[in-house]
């Protein structure tokens, strides 16, 4: 059924409230940030209104290029690990009874109620020398003495995957529940083993969902700034950590704003790319 487009001004009134909220809480702060990114830093105070490209110019150095490269790599890795783990898990979950599904989903939702700080400290305890899992390995006779596994890249990755996994599952779940179960059955009657049917029917049939989920987790991971700080060394700090550092500890608001704008542009570019890829798919 096709709906009539709104004609009079009165037809637009339902949009009024969300529009105001969007302007007050998104457009104005974001515009301020863009403006600040062109301001000049004032070492004595905060910043002085100006129009200079210094902040962006400073960003174009090898040091920050490396950080940006590392942040993107980490976010991509988190996205891939999350989808690789969550997709088969969610697929198997949808094959369970309604009751089992509900219990799992409630548990996953409860993970979402944990704050990033709690997750960070929990993992840092779990991987520490004094109270970490290596003590268990020692007790089992697998290791000579307990060691600290952090700070390290592996632990940063683990913590971020742990944080993003519930979102990944919740995004994949509706698509997998709706997937026609006879697709796999058809593949089986045509000679595919269940694992092969999963790989060459279920996965490709949900390609768009998988791509969308990868992007979502990627953007989510790109914004993470606490876990890399808590669980990693300074070389594992992401761009978000450096933005926080510049804004709060170095009081260099214009530079932090410039980096933030850059990060937003990268995220938008990626979302745009996905939309473009999706459109090409539909045009087929």
């Amino acid at each position, binding site marked *: 059924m096709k709906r009539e487009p709104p004609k009079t001004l009165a037809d637009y009134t339902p949009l009024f409230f969300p529009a105001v909220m969007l302007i007050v809480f998104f457009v104005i702060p974001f515009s301020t940030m863009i403006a600040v990114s062109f301001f000049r830093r004032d070492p004595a105070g905060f910043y002085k209104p100006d129009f200079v490209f210094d902040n962006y110019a400073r960003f174009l150095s090898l040091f920050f290029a490396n950080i940006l490269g590392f942040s993107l790599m980490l976010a991509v890795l988190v996205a891939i690990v999350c989808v690789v783990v969550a997709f088969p898990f969610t697929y198997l979950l949808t094959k369970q009874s309604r009751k089992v599904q509900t219990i799992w989903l409630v548990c996953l939702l409860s993970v979402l109620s944990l704050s990033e700080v709690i997750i960070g400290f929990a993992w840092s305890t779990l991987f520490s020398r004094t109270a970490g899992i290596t003590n268990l390995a020692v007790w089992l006779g697998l290791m000579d003495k307990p060691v600290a596994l952090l700070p390290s890249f592996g632990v940063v990755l683990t913590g971020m995957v742990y944080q993003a996994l519930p979102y990944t599952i919740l995004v994949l779940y509706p698509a997998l529940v709706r997937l*026609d179960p006879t697709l796999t059955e*058809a593949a089986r*009657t045509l*000679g*595919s083993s269940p694992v*092969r049917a999963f790989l060459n029917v279920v996965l490709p*049939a949900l*390609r768009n969902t998988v791509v969308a989920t990868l992007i979502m987790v990627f953007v989510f991971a790109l914004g993470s700034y606490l876990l890399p700080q808590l669980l990693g060394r300074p070389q594992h700090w992401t761009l978000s950590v450096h933005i926080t550092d510049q804004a709060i500890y170095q009081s260099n608001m214009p530079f932090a704003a410039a980096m933030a704008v850059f990060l937003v542009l990268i995220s938008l570019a990626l979302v745009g790319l996905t939309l473009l890829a999706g459109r090409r798919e539909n045009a087929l």
Partner: protein
Amino acid sequence: MSGLAIQSVTKRFGDFNAVDDVSLSVPHGTFVCLLGPSGCGKTTLLRMIAGLEEPTAGAILLDGADITGVPTHKRSFGMVFQSLALFPHLSVGDNIAYALRIRGAPKDEQKKRADELLKLVHLPGFADRPVAKLSGGQRQRVAIARALALSPKLFLLDEPMSALDAKLRESMQVELRQLQQRLGITTIVVTHDQREAMTMADLVVVMGEGRIRQAAAPIEIYRKPADAFVADFIGSTNLLQASADSAGRATILGSAVAGLALPSGVAKASVSIRPEDVRLGAPGSGAVDGTVTFVRDLGATIETYVETAGTTIVAVTTPRERVDVAAGDKVGVILPAESCVVVKS
């Protein structure tokens, strides 16, 4: 033995017997329709033949070999699903060639076989189209072609026509039957549409409550239904209570029907008579008299509802017979004994 043999197969879901001790033998090259109302176990039986469900008890044999424990992907039967289950991410040609791809057949062989099958289902030149751009009937044909890609020993279809509109369904039924005869492939179709079964099948298996009620040729099922369930399910019928008088003659609605007898020792039974076999005449001319309550003139046929002693009998006549009656008229209902079938109730 050549063909498919189902031996005392039972499938239980919890306390519910979906399929209850079913035995059936299907000779090679036969077209079988599993027919029954929804929930009668026909789809479960088909899924067990395909290997998608495991029987709780019993065995399934193909050409004498027990295939009960063989997993689906090693049976290589062609199956068409109710949803058709075409792979949305593949083109028509790749859908059809899927089974060959799984077996590692070379690309040109896959393409050749896909084109061959597309010609067989009257869709030449469709190989490169995306599945999403096909009409209902075209999807149907692609699903059939895909299931036939490996020239399977057994061709299984689960309510394949249910998504099509009535006209298209009828022509697809004829086409499927002709295709089956040309290929000589053993085919089992699940359907709840008795017209579909009558059109296509060599052997109609009527199922009800998980059991086989009757398995016979379509016309035999229609003419000689084994019980009241079958008589009622296949076409429409008048099911009348009959009792035997002292001489063994059958009495329907209080009047004896000349030439009709109940089996000896049976005092009460149901008698099935098809509406097209019931004739109407002047009051007193038939076994019973009644009042016309409704006339449904469908053009090609006229259905007349006659009430006699609290029972409604439906008579179907053609306009050529010129039975001019209207609601309220008194008529005589003639029940020819040769058309009456005594069934177990």
